[in-house]
């Protein structure tokens, strides 16, 4: 028997993993903002299904919510397909309208039931262990049961359609000519996103659904170039954000979902700054090195172009480099020294001359 504390962590980990799997493809296909739209509008599906079935336990709620997620994507496509509105604006038109409708329907017709708009956005993971169901004699939190279901389903879908997803993501035209309908793959993915969002947002809130779908894959994308590794890393990062967020929240006694989203953001920020090859720091170091190497090449090329010309004495004077190539004096000194050390140039009095090696370098460029 698990303690509630362990159960909450287990739920968080499973939901994080379930969200990241479709999230990887949302990020790669540049559709991340659809997660924003879907995770809001599924509420309308739930409300409508509730008003029809009059029961919060009806499976219709789940079906309605998933369908509404897919309908949202379809509506965005209809609006942007009219060519009157660009796609980003279409997303910004569709989901606030559907979400407003949901909020109003709740406050008007379902205000007395457990469908609180705050908890939809914010989630309350701490309460998840108290909402339990018994299956095959095992007593489980509902969120754990459904979260595992979504995770398993997403994993199976990924395993089955990995090749198709990969192809349709990187080369939709080729995928279409090979007979894999991009529309089917697109709507399949959106169904999976919608289903995961519905499962997850009850426990963690719609905003954390977005954070878990987008932040770990975006972080992983900064760390690797290979799709399988990106998927694995995303899941690991999502799980790490969930666990660390949980403990930070317990330590400071703050919102668990909020802390998890924050940790996911901190993880991304760290990768953005310090990723081995793509991070800001690594880029700055590479940039400096490249700038110097580049400047040495430019110097040899400049000398080659003016070699033997009548104005060579002026053009090949170190002072001229400061003017002509817009170099700072200190930088020009450093570059001349570096070129000299590498044996590309030598000084003849005041004038710089190419060595054979330097001439070869310049010709090769």
């Amino acid at each position, binding site marked *: 028997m698990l303690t509630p504390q362990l159960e909450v962590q287990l739920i968080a980990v499973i939901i994080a993993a379930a969200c990241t799997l479709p999230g990887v493809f949302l990020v790669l296909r540049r559709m991340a903002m659809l997660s924003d739209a879907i995770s809001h509008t599924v509420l309308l599906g739930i409300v409508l299904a509730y008003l029809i079935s009059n029961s919060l336990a009806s499976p219709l709620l789940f079906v309605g919510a998933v369908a509404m997620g897919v309908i949202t994507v379809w509506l965005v496509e209809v609006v942007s397909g009219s060519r*009157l*509105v660009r796609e980003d*604006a279409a997303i910004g*038109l569709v989901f606030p309208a559907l979400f407003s409708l949901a909020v109003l329907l709740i*406050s008007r017709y379902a205000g007395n039931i457990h469908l609180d708009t705050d908890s939809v956005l914010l989630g309350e993971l701490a309460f998840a262990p108290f909402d339990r169901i018994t299956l095959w004699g095992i007593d489980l939190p509902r969120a754990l049961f459904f979260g595992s279901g979504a995770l398993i389903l997403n994993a199976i879908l990924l395993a089955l359609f990995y090749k198709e997803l990969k192809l349709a993501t990187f080369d939709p035209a080729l995928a279409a000519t090979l007979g894999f309908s991009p529309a089917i793959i697109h709507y399949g993915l959106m169904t999976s996103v919608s289903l995961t969002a519905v499962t997850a947002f009850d426990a963690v809130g719609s905003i954390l659904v977005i954070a878990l779908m987008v932040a770990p894959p975006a972080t992983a994308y*900064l760390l690797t170039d290979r799709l399988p590794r990106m998927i694995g890393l995303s899941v690991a990062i999502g799980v790490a954000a969930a666990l660390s967020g949980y403990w930070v929240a317990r330590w400071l006694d703050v919102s668990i979902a909020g802390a998890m*989203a924050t940790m996911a953001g901190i993880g991304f920020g760290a990768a953005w700054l310090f990723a081995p090859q793509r991070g800001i720091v690594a880029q700055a170091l590479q940039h400096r090195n490249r700038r110097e190497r580049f400047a040495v090449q430019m110097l040899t090329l400049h000398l080659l172009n003016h070699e033997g010309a009548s104005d060579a004495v002026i053009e090949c004077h170190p002072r001229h480099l400061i003017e002509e190539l817009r170099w700072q004096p200190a930088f020009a000194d450093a570059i001349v020294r570096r070129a000299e050390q590498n044996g590309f140039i030598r000084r003849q009095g005041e004038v710089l001359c190419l060595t054979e090696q330097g001439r070869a370098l310049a010709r090769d460029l």
Partner: protein
Amino acid sequence: MIAERMIELFTDYTLRNVTIGSMLLGAISGLLGCFAVLRRQALLGDAMSHAALPGIALAFLLTGQRDTFTLLLGAAIAALAAALWLLAIVRTSRIKDDAALALILAVFFGFGLVLLSYVQRQPTAAQAGLKSFLFGQAAALVERDLWAMLAIGGPALALIAIFWPQVKLISFDPDFARSLGLPVRRFEVLLTSVIVVAIVIGLQTVGVVLMSAMLIAPAVAARQWTNRLETMVLLAAGFGALAAFSGAWISALGERLATGPVIVLAMSALTAISLLIAPERGLLWRRWRLMRQWQSGNGE
């Protein structure tokens, strides 16, 4: 009864504040939102309005004030910080703008929740109402808030009016503007700040979640009716105010109808109608013209 209510919107003190406040918001955000939509930054408003939440909570935590101005200043700073980080991410990494938008939206909002839950444990009674920024609380608008809206929105509108030719050129063709020697970067910062202003004004009325609709929908609706930027901007302001008025009115009629969502729904309806029937561009209008052509073609 319905008509009486409509008069009350302007005579009853509380209702008047709600009505005028909402209309101000609708007009200002409608007008300024045009630039977000035309410069392909429609969803930036969504990300920035969510990102304003931690700013509100931090402003409260640092100053202990629940004064509108302080909180909105915090909101503006957080929203701008989010926009800057977003630009930096897109410019310096391989992350595309959709992922950066979603990430920043969710992370800032999550951090806002952390702060909010921290604030709520504070013993002071003053924390009450911070949550109203989620969906807005138009009913709580007081006269001071209206003046605050004008004080923030007025200068933004004035800047746009003063630099109108430049703003228009930079929205259409930034490269050409740069070749003329205009300080395009500075104008881009100005236009982003102006959107922040619109968001900050809207937070009290429609809240962070629905704010993006008030930026995008009036601009999209207005675009369908005109081919001139000048007309579009004024029309968007008019649509925004109209939607806000009908929202305030409908929610004053019905019980338990929050003003913010009603305004957004009214605006969405206006937009849908515009997309369908606007002359030249509307979908139904184009279909109707096609049918006319087809019929007159058959008649000959």
